[in-house]
């Protein structure tokens, strides 16, 4: 398969940007990524823009063309992508494939979202889904996984809270994160209960934000220079089994397996992970699915410090969704930006030394006790 490289990465601080539009945020991230790549905008041959809520909240469609025309990326194929939380990584998947196919030598991926508006309302699996009509809300679907995981494996409330504490400690040194002040297990457990056993501090905050990447073919990488190689990029969807297993998320395991297979490496080769910790239990499930530990051992993994900075395989060194915030369309691009910056050695006080392989994992949207979308990408610093 043709090699794909990450030539440029950009991200703006996540948070509440009351006076900024999606276009303004997305264009800033795109400018950062293009400058980082050292590529003039007219050289870009394909554009992929991720956003989830612009149509619902603002009545805007085909926002990608608005964003990319601001940075002089016009007159080329542009695709607007919606795949819930995995919108950004789905845009990345499409860009990787555009380069692999030879259709483009340089592609840009932008994810941007604006959520801090009064009309946001509750996020659910879709207004007409039967689960929604029976009272399912996003925190409930993760709370059910947490309850089942505790029941089957003895995972504790303390272990769940440790995910939030660890990720907040990581975020202290991440200037783009929403929350950067350290918290304790006691504070996490004492914060308001949202859906048993998940408290508010185990739930990621909404945010406005944007992130972008510029991808290169081998030819473009030789011309402009690039250090980070895409070792695999997987997009898969749920099987929606009649008896979904909430403690072992098959779609998650399948995505991880496919990503390792395509990269030709295994879990023991991974030096860092950015995963979809929309809720504390999510990170525990994803660590198990990615093979960082045996099924059921995810609670102990975080409690023992294995996934903390300084541990064997740091997970969410950026602070994760729990601390960085979760602007839906931007999140999965932000994960890839963090892995890129880590593998380049550009993350300052949260830097993981000598990392060769990093994973960006994301899941999106509930359906029948499964996820509609799962993405796993493995990046390498080129030595691997």
């Amino acid at each position, binding site marked *: 398969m043709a090699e794909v490289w990450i030539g440029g990465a950009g991200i703006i601080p996540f948070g509440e940007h009351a006076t900024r539009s999606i276009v303004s945020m997305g264009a800033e991230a795109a400018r950062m990524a293009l400058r980082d790549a050292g590529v003039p905008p007219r050289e870009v041959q394909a554009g992929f823009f991720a956003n989830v809520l612009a149509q619902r909240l603002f009545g805007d469609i085909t926002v990608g063309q608005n964003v990319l025309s601001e940075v002089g990326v016009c007159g080329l194929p542009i695709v607007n992508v919606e795949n819930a939380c995995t919108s950004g990584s789905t845009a990345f998947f499409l860009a990787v494939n555009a380069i692999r196919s030879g259709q483009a030598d340089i592609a840009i991926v932008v994810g941007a979202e604006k959520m801090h508006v009064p009309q946001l309302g509750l996020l659910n699996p879709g207004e007409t889904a039967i689960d929604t009509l029976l009272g399912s*809300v996003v925190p409930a679907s993760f709370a059910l996984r947490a309850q089942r995981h505790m029941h089957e494996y003895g995972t504790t409330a303390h272990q769940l809270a440790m995910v939030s504490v660890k990720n907040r400690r990581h975020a202290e040194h991440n200037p783009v994160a929403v929350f950067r002040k350290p918290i304790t297990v006691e504070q996490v457990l004492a914060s308001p209960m949202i859906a048993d056993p998940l408290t508010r501090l185990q739930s990621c905050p909404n945010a406005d934000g944007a992130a972008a990447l510029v991808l290169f073919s081998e030819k473009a990488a030789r011309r402009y220079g690039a250090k980070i190689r895409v070792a695999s990029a997987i997009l898969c969807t749920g099987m929606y089994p009649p008896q979904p297993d909430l403690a072992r998320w098959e779609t998650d395991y399948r995505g991880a397996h496919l990503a390792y297979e395509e990269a030709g490496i295994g879990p023991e080769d991974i030096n860092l992970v950015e995963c979809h910790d929309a809720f504390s239990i999510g990170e525990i499930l994803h660590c198990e699915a990615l093979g960082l530990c045996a099924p059921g051992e995810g609670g102990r993994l975080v409690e023992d410090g294995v996934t903390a900075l300084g541990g064997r395989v740091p997970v969410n060194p950026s602070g994760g969704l729990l601390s960085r915030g979760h602007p839906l369309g931007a999140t999965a691009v932000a994960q890839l930006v963090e892995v890129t910056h880590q593998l380049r050695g550009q993350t300052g006080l949260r830097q993981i030394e000598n990392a060769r392989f990093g994973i960006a994992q994301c899941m999106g949207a509930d359906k029948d006790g499964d996820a509609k979308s799962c993405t796993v990408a493995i990046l390498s610093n080129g030595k691997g």
Partner: protein
Amino acid sequence: MTSTTFPLGLNDSFLPSGVGDGCDVLVGRCHCSERYFFPVRSYCPECLEPMEVVPLSGRGHVYAFTTVRRRAPLGLPEPYAVGYIDLDDAPLRIFGLFAADAVEGLKTDIKVDLRVTALGHDNSGEPCLRPVFHLSGGQHG
């Protein structure tokens, strides 16, 4: 209870059974694989032929549960409880609401049954009938 209707979108999936306040679950069954489907659909996604709609009793066991304590949607009371229930009559694990008086007594594997129950209110503020799982009296575990 023959005139009972649930909020829009639920009437294809749940049917008052005619026995007291009991409620059946409508599931799809296709003979190509003997597999059951919920929510019910008109055509089998495997052989693409029309599928049989079968009413099943709403009896089952709790697989997982949670109590939602903030920002109840759809006029549901706060708190309210939801979960996944393993049906007794088919290999299906379905999402459902639990009765308000069941919230504190929920346990994994406990027996439940589905009944037509007023829970919360509808868009016009009137009490709303919904298919709701109750703890099956005296048969815990």
